[in-house]
């Protein structure tokens, strides 16, 4: 089945958003090697090998509980903050193991930003304060705060809506605006990679579309890894897709990965085909 046929079958609504084209696989920005993850005694991921080419968007799909969110939390060392968390294998960022004893996790988290499922701006700060909060919290020094605020809010597609009220409380914004504010906040520390854990699951369709446009725009400069339950979203925004599955009683693993057009249009595995066609999950 070709991509076009596939879109017909799925009746995908991709108007207004360019169907993504596969970027030529450039150098690898990040990669997991034989990664297994535990919560206490429970193994939740086994043998995950995925490479993320620089300045591309990779979608992680799969049913709930298959370990996608856990996986991206290992990529910026947030996983280890959970009591009882353990891990084997390695995560390479720009060729170096981020779990190396000499690596400062704070440094890693600044280079590898994250956007969560629910918008989480700091309610006690203004819009401007939120954008700059990463600098303040991490003690990072950057000049020209006004420029940073305008630049990042523009990149996040929020500037025009908030430029006249930067001093207002972040809580006054709508959910979709808050999520874009949070993206701007993540961008202000100039990360090379942006992890997004179902960033649109709490948003309405119009806001979702805006965020997707933002993601496509950002992919020119940042490597994006996005967890999504929305198949159409994966098709719209991603260059590559990895399909995770945790079959009964076994830890989650990657069933199939590759160019998004391939995974959705011509999957090699029956389970992938069933999942992307909505037969389970």
């Amino acid at each position: 089945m070709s991509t076009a046929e596939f879109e017909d079958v799925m009746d995908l609504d991709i108007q207004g958003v360019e169907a993504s084209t596969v970027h030529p696989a450039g150098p690898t920005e990040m990669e997991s090697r034989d990664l297994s993850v535990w919560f206490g005694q429970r193994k939740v991921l086994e043998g995950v090998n995925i490479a993320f080419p620089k300045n591309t968007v990779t979608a992680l799909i799969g049913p709930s509980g298959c370990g996608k969110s856990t996986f991206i939390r290992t990529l910026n060392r947030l996983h280890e903050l959970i009591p009882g968390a353990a891990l084997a294998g390695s995560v390479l960022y720009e060729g170096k193991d981020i779990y190396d004893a000499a690596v400062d996790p704070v440094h890693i988290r600044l280079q590898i930003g994250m956007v969560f499922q629910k918008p989480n701006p700091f309610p006690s700060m203004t819009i401007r304060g939120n954008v700059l909060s990463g600098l303040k919290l991490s003690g990072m020094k950057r000049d020209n705060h006004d420029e940073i605020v305008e630049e990042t809010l523009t990149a996040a597609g929020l500037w025009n809506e908030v430029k006249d009220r930067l001093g207002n409380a972040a809580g006054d914004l709508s959910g979709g605006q808050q999520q874009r504010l949070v993206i701007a906040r993540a961008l202000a520390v100039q990360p090379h990679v942006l992890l997004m854990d179902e960033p649109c699951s709490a948003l309405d369709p119009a806001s979702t579309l805006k965020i997707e446009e933002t993601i496509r725009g950002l992919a020119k400069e940042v490597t994006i890894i996005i967890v999504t339950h929305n198949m159409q979203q994966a098709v719209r925004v991603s260059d590559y897709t990895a399909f995770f599955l945790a079959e009964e009683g076994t830890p989650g693993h990657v069933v199939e990965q590759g160019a998004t057009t391939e995974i959705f249009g011509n999957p090699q595995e029956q389970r992938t085909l069933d999942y992307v066609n909505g037969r389970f999950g």
Partner: protein
Amino acid sequence: MELRDLQSAATSHRGDRVFTRTVAGAAFTSLLVLAGIAIFLGLQAVPAFQTQGWAFLTTTGWDINTTPPTVGIFGMLYGSVLLAVIGLVIAIPASLLLAIFMVFLSPPRLAKVLTNLIDLMAAIPSVILGLWAFYILNPTAEEWQVLLNKYLGWIPIFENTSGNFLGTPFIAGFVLAIMMIPIITAVTREVLSRTPPDLINASEALGCSLWTMLRYVALPYGRGGIVGGVMLGLGRALGETIAVFFVLKIVFETNWDKIIESGGGSVATLIVSRFGEVSGPLELQLLLAAGFFLFVMTLIVNVIANLIVSRTGRLQK
């Protein structure tokens, strides 16, 4: 067009009406009690205030044998505030650190044990605390104060010219701190443990240390609640009588700033110390008048506290 009545109680469910009235009644009862106390004390205070005039509030002394008696409670009002401030200076940092430890650092089981212990601390009757302070704390703290005086004596508040370090405002304030710590800690712990996990996630993902997370996320989030807890503690400190009575050497002077010099006072201890040997109805009225002004001062402190709480809601740029 005629508007239909949607708001009046008559249109609502009968059970709700009964419930609403019961609850409102209970709420008004507490207001009535408050007003009753204020009126009773106020009425008693009027004659005393008439004989003394403003000197009652601006001078310090308690000589009942002159006609009219020359009494003034300024030093005692000031003493109440001074003791409370000393207590807060000790209790606030201790409580915050304790709460932060329990919420963010300690293993959950230890946190549980600590929580129970601290709640127990709040349950110690103040007379027991007073006895303990008299026999144990007073002589122990004497040595701390000698050290304070030795090394920090150049700061005016740590001066001591008499060489007597017993029965000082510092010790009384310390006892008050012990009474405030469980209250402030319990409230702060509760508030901090409600910091939304989303915000903690956000700050972790932004490369925050525990300190910056506390400073910019958890503490601002819990600010209102923490100030509220401090005010609860302060309310207890201002009115605390018996524990202070045990340890403080009561003198009718205004010790402006000598916190480790023997002698001090507070309105509550003044009342309890005179009440047992009151010389007649006039002195009783004078004591009730003192109580009235303690009551007024507590109200003022609470109003100021509310202002602080509403002002601290300001946004961080």
